[in-house]
Every structure is written in structure tokens, then in C-alpha cells.
């Protein structure tokens, strides 16, 4: 799968975002072993130091766990993944809601709009 980056945003933040998305979508499963940093860097065509920085940050967030000899794994702690889901969805949804409410949309109109579009199968 190709990784597409926007060069004007720090690459490591985009890697974090992409891996979080893969955990939520189930592409990366709890307990799954990650390839080595060098292999991941090769796949994403980024500098290994950048990949290292992103994985370190994911480890700090508790989404990845390191085992000294065997490598890095996606966490199996459900609480961590639940927390990620909440934060991720909030992060994606809030700017959209904010934008629409500044256009004068009410909560009810927003709900109605979501119902209509999801019913029509546009999403």
C-alpha cells in the first residue's frame, strides 16, 4: 500500500495518524507484530529516523508495545484502543461540526442532514 504524505506537515505526525487509522480499521490487529523500523521506513519511503520517532510516540501513547528481543507489537489493551477511537473520532468530527455551525446550521438540521446522506448511501 502506498503511503502518501503532505510535505508541508511533519512526516512523523502523518505516520502516527496513518498507523492509528490502521489500528481502528482493523488493518493492524491487536497483538500483531510490526515489521522492523528499517522495513517500515522502506515501505513508506521515509527516513528510518522519522519512522523511529513516530513509533516512539505511538509507544508513549500506549498503542505499541516493545519487547526487547522480539520487536514491536500493537497493544492488546482494549482500553487503549477504545481511548484512541474516542480521540480519533473527536479529532476528525469536531472541525467539521465547527465549520458547519459557523454557517448557521442547528443541531437538529445537522442530525437531519446526516440521516439524509447516510440513507442515500452517499457515505
Amino acid at each position, binding site marked *: 500500500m502506498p503511503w502518501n504524505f503532505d510535505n*508541508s506537515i511533519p512526516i512523523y505526525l502523518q505516520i502516527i495518524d496513518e498507523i492509528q487509522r490502521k489500528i481502528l480499521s482493523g488493518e493492524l490487529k491487536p497483538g500483531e507484530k510490526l515489521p522492523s523500523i528499517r522495513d517500515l521506513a522502506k515501505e513508506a*519511503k521515509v527516513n528510518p529516523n522519522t519512522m523511529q520517532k513516530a513509533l516512539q510516540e505511538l509507544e508513549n501513547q500506549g498503542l505499541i508495545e516493545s519487547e526487547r528481543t522480539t520487536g514491536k507489537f500493537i497493544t492488546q489493551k482494549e482500553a487503549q484502543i477504545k481511548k484512541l477511537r474516542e480521540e480519533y473520532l473527536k479529532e476528525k468530527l469536531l472541525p467539521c461540526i465547527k465549520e458547519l455551525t459557523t454557517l448557521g446550521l442547528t443541531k437538529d438540521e445537522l442530525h437531519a442532514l446526516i440521516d439524509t446522506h447516510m440513507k442515500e448511501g452517499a457515505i
Partner: protein
Amino acid sequence: MMDPIIQLKHLSKHFGKTKALDNVTLTIPKGKIIGLLGPNGSGKSTLFKILNGLLAPTEGEVLIGGHAPSIESKGLISYLPERTYLNDWMKVHELLDFFEDFYEDFQRNKAMTMLEALHIDPKAALKTLSKGNKEKVQLILVMSRKAEVYLLDEPIGGVDPAARDYILSTILSNYAEGATLLISTHLISDIEKIFDEVIFLKDGGIYDYASVEDIREKSGQSIDELFREVFKC
């Protein structure tokens, strides 16, 4: 500060009245991929030639792994020049022999694997290859050495956009672990995602030396955009 691999102290190179490099002081650490960026005539190729001992500085000091440019320093450096110096009547496999004789750290099997991956016939003579394939052969030779420093002067200049990504992967997957790469290029947007740091050269001096992620974070710009701003004509 991490272990330095290249140290430049008050380095100048004059050609007559022209100052190609003017009082450059710089310390480059081990294990980084660094973009050397600047407009035409800013001193990039001159700096590469000095690091590689092909030009002597007018003033100042150069140290590579603690050595002045010499046989010792050349053993540490794998250099891809701007123009080819290879005999084009030679066949690709003969060039491999040539590198094997010349450099103790040349890994022939690595070169063969890369040739295969890029669909280049080892039995072909260099002169029968397209410009892009010639460049690929040179890059393969350079990346097959287990060097401490790779100096790549415009490594993707002559290859088409589709092959550039492949070349980048070739560089990323083949450089020796812990080595430093110094890459000059005009094709910044194609290559900037593999940089740790960039050096901006302007009129023979260091305009800026910074981490690429810091630049993106602070300016909200890509390195390509920043370059266009700094060197606007």
C-alpha cells in the same frame, strides 16, 4: 551533539576572484540523511569535490572521520559525481569487477540484486544503455559499497518520475547502517521525505542548517516551498 563524521572549519575555495565556498564551518553527525540544497552556483558540487579530495581548499580544514582528505578518507566515502567518470565501452559486469578491485567494501552480491530489481542486464555495455539506466548503474555501484559517508550529487536528475521512487527505495534499503548520506538535488519535493536535515547553501555560505521536521512544524511549509521562498529570483 552526536558523533561527528564530517567537520569543516573556516573552509574557503576561490577560483580566481570567485568565492565558490566562503568561510564555511559545519559539523555533520553520523547516521543522518542530509539534503544539500542551493541554487546553481551555490557551491554544492565544489563542496563534494573537496570532501572527496578532488579539489584542494584555498583555506580552512576538512576532516572526514578524523582524517584530512586522503587515501584513508576515500576509503570511508562513496561518491556519486555529477558526471560519469566510468568508461562507457565497459560492460556492466566489468564495472563490477573494477569496483571490486578498487574498493574493499564493495558488495558484489548487493549490486547484482539491485541490477536485477531494476531490470538491467549485467552483460550490456554501458554505452548501449539509456541515460536513465546509466545513472542507475552508477548509483548501484555507489550504494553497493559499505561506506560511512555517501556523497550523492544529483542522484535522480536523469531518471523519469516513476523510477525516482524506486531509486529512493534503492538508496534507503542499501545504505550501510549508521552511515551519513549527503544528497544534493534540485528535485526537492520528490526526495525531501527521506531527509533528516537540510543544509541551504547560498553564495558559497551556509544560509541555514536545520531539521526538516522542525522546518515543517515551525513554518507549515514543505522544504520545497521554503527553498522557493528563500531563493526567489
